[in-house]
């Protein structure tokens, strides 16, 4: 799984914001805000990775249980499956 191109993530005033550019801006109007975990996973899925790899990356980065990490990744993957991932 990988985030589609044409979506840029930046911090604006400490808020993690994703906006569409180019072709993507014609399909998707608006913006997404992400919490810290969301921003971490967004950057991780900028490269092609599996869900299992994302869980491992979350566990390595944050002090969370495997159960929470799996839940977070599953939620994130579901959200980006709505047209933001390939």
């Amino acid at each position, binding site marked *: 799984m990988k985030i589609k191109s044409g979506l840029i993530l930046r911090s604006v005033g400490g*808020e993690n914001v994703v906006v569409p550019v*180019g072709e993507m801006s014609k399909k998707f109007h608006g913006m997404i805000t992400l919490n810290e975990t969301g921003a971490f996973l967004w950057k991780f899925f900028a490269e092609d990775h599996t869900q299992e790899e994302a869980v491992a990356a979350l566990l390595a980065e944050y002090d969370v249980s495997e159960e929470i990490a799996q839940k977070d990744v599953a939620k994130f993957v579901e959200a980006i499956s709505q047209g933001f991932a390939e």
Partner: protein
Amino acid sequence: MMIYDIAGLRIDIQNRCKFTEKFCEGYLSDNQISAADLSVFVTNEEFYAEKSNPGNFSDGYIENICLYRNICKQLPNLDRFLLHSAILQYENEAFAFLGKSGTGKSTHTGLWCKHLDGVRIVNGDKPILQWKDNEFLAYGTPWMGKEGLGSNTVAPLKGLCFLEQSPINEIVRLTPAQAANRIFTQVLMPQDMENAEKTLELLDKLVTIVPSYLLKCTISEEAVKLSFEALTGKKYPL
């Protein structure tokens, strides 16, 4: 083609309809010879896309709208951007009032002009901001919204005030993240990567450096007093 001095830039406007020449005449550059910082024109595709929108507008007006949009799309790479807001100047400091259309930007800024001496409207609707020497400058432009209020001037931007209608008057300071969430809808986001990234970078600076407030207000002088004292840090003159 004519060169205009707008927001500290030499802009070459290649219009076909006369409308824009009259519209921008107060900004015509004395120097028509030196190179321009940017050039704009409107493609047929852009013109007809705009013309297909509801409303019965003249071709000159439609071209004029498209020209400004094309100017604004190129601004971020020149450290500038359009902030949809009403900007007032008081004692050489500029303050931006923001809100969805219909929230009362022109009503509230009109009350500032009525109750306070020495207030000038920089631009009632579509000012340009420039990031320069670690501060933001607010510029008047020929494009001023339907009321046509504004002047060819510039002043440092010292505060942002988001407006909401309310039965009571109240002002609170916003964090940069809260201001960020409110400001996106007031900015034209360019569609090319470079200018979009630059816009986000400029917005990050804006909400981090310039203090932001949320004013919940009635139509009253009391509301003016609240926003005046928060934005200027001065006592409201009696």
